[in-house]
């Protein structure tokens, strides 16, 4: 398969083998489905990516995630940590079973000294900063479409991109 074809397929989250097609609904309970109702009918190429998509949506409070970006971040997170898929499945199961409010999640994990305590920050950091890995192993996967740029895109441009014509910044922002 060419790289281009892989990209196209990834961008639509279509599995290479349609018989392996899954819907995220199968990975969720009624509680988590209520957090991300859009996801119920979303396809995922495999359970691991599906779990990542679902957990990402819960953690970043989104009803939709760009499939290409999901694939790129997932691949980078797996490359950074081989245990990442299993950890994601475990955390999603935990949230499914115990119906943990995303607002309370970090507190719960910290209080219980969970080995998964670092996982939410890794995922949220990947989505909002576009960065995967830490210290010298850190890599920038996305910049302009990192969620922290998207969230403020109606007011600000990512640094290095022109705000507008000269003096356009003198006006009231909103």
């Amino acid at each position, binding site marked *: 398969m060419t790289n281009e074809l892989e990209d196209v397929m990834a961008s639509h989250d279509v599995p290479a083998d349609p018989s392996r097609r899954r819907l995220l609904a199968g990975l969720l309970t009624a509680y988590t489905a209520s957090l991300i109702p859009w996801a119920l009918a979303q396809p995922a190429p495999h359970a691991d990516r599906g779990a990542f998509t679902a957990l990402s949506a819960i953690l970043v*409070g989104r009803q939709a995630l760009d499939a290409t970006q999901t694939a790129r971040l997932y691949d980078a997170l797996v490359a950074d940590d081989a245990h990442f898929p299993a950890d994601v499945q475990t955390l999603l199961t935990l949230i499914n079973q115990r119906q943990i409010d995303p607002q309370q999640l970090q507190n719960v994990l910290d209080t219980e000294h969970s080995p998964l305590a670092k996982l939410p920050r890794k995922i949220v950091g990947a989505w909002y*900063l576009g960065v995967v890995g830490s210290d010298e192993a850190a890599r920038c996967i996305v910049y302009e479409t990192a969620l922290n740029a998207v969230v403020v895109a109606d007011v600000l441009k990512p640094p*290095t991109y022109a705000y507008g014509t*000269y003096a356009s910044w003198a006006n009231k922002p909103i």
Partner: protein
Amino acid sequence: MSEQLSADIVVIGSGIVGSLAARRLALQGASVLILEAGPRLDRGRVVAAFRNSPIKGNWMSPYPPSPWAPHPIYVPKDNGYLKQAGPYPYPAEYIRAVGGTTWHWAAMAWRLVPNDVRIKSLYGVGVDWPMSYEELDPWYQEAEELIGVAGAPDTGSPRNQPFPMEPVAEPWSMRRFRERLAPAYAVVANTVARNSRSYGGRPACVGNNSCQPICPVNAQYLGINAVEAAEVAGAKVVPNAVVYRIEHDAKGRIAAVHYYDPDKGTHRVTGKTFILAANGIESPKLLLLSASDKYPNGLANSSDMVGRHLMDHPSTSITFYADEELWLGRGPQSPSSINTLRDGAFRSEHAPYRLDFTNISQVLSVTQDLIKEGVYGTEFDKQLRWRAAHQVSVKNVLEVLPDPDNRITLSSEKDAMGIPKPEAHYSIGDYTRRAAEVSKADFARIAELMGGTGLRYSAEGNFANNQHITGTMSMGNDPKSSVVDGFGRTHDHENLFICSTGVMPTAATMNSTLTGIALALRTAGHILPKPANAHAAVSNAEREASLS
């Protein structure tokens, strides 16, 4: 030895200061050779490197050091180039590349205030400069017209000629500071080398908000612009030429300099006049490295003052949430300041300071804060928007007095080329610390006037550094207490001049670059005097260029 180079004027270092001196001398008809330790960079690649950097809050990340000409890096980990002898850390940052450190700067192009050059006489602290502010005025003007400075008249620095450009348009956030802090504080536009209209063949600012680490559109004057101007004037630049020794003759005149290429091949460059312009750390390092039997303490160092009197501008700060949406990040990064505390009778008791408002987008820092706090779900977006709209920060820029114990020396450690690394000995004195304490009242008042909540002062005793390296080769009239005279000529070597912010005898409260350039132009004018109307001639040329 593969080749022999020679020129009338040999300049060591291709930063904005040395390159503009080189340009002036080349225009006068001298053959000029600029030796630069680092490589030539490409603006587009620097922009791409920043966009691809995982550590965008660190403005050195798009400027990795080259193995043959390392510079200090601290993030993600200290590369150990600038050794720290303490007691207080001095984590200076600079860039060894063609164009030097002003590849990334805020383009603040401040003049001194007149009393800055007389603090010993007026306030009994520090030292006086060997010149008056009035003597500097025409050189400031020449520098401002060369690099294209936009500024407001009410900053405390008088002038005989108008600024080349009107102030850069005020961002909404700064307008609100100005309106709400009046009359308690006068918030005025910063004096900057940033175009408020087309000037010098470069465009007006379009608000990329990445002045540091890189202006992508060439609206902000950078050292590389100075290099290119020097080349147009006829100067030749040799990149990747790591000067490791300055050679003198029996009479103490400089005969040559020696450099390594990246493969450690050696080259000898002869000349009539030599200008050392390799910044306030690398320049004294090179003078100390060049010790000989005749000059066992290093060149230009009969006073033992080379490397001493290291100064910079430490800062403390406050960050808070204003009670209205200001959305920092629209327009340039450093638009406005409060200048009224830069001088006064209090200077006999504590340091003066400038209060500086940032307009750097807060999006990155508040995202990092929210991640650290473990905020997830729909709350993240809400918090991110609210904080990015409301979070503001103000810092002081504090004067440091010259102290001979604050100094750059040679480390026992060597870099990859076998050249000793520089070592910083630094502390922040009570004069500066008292001012930091005093300025807390200003921080509190500013926060109050902006309806501030969530006030966060920088940690007690912690000072951020501003990379304004000054003092290490101070100028003065007395050869026993200074390294160069008032024209930048070393007291010890007739044909060795220093062009650097390192010749500034005191640090005052302004970013040092413009003063460094003005002094360098004055030095160049001393080496090769121009006709009496030289300043006007340069101004007219720049005006014509700005209209083209």
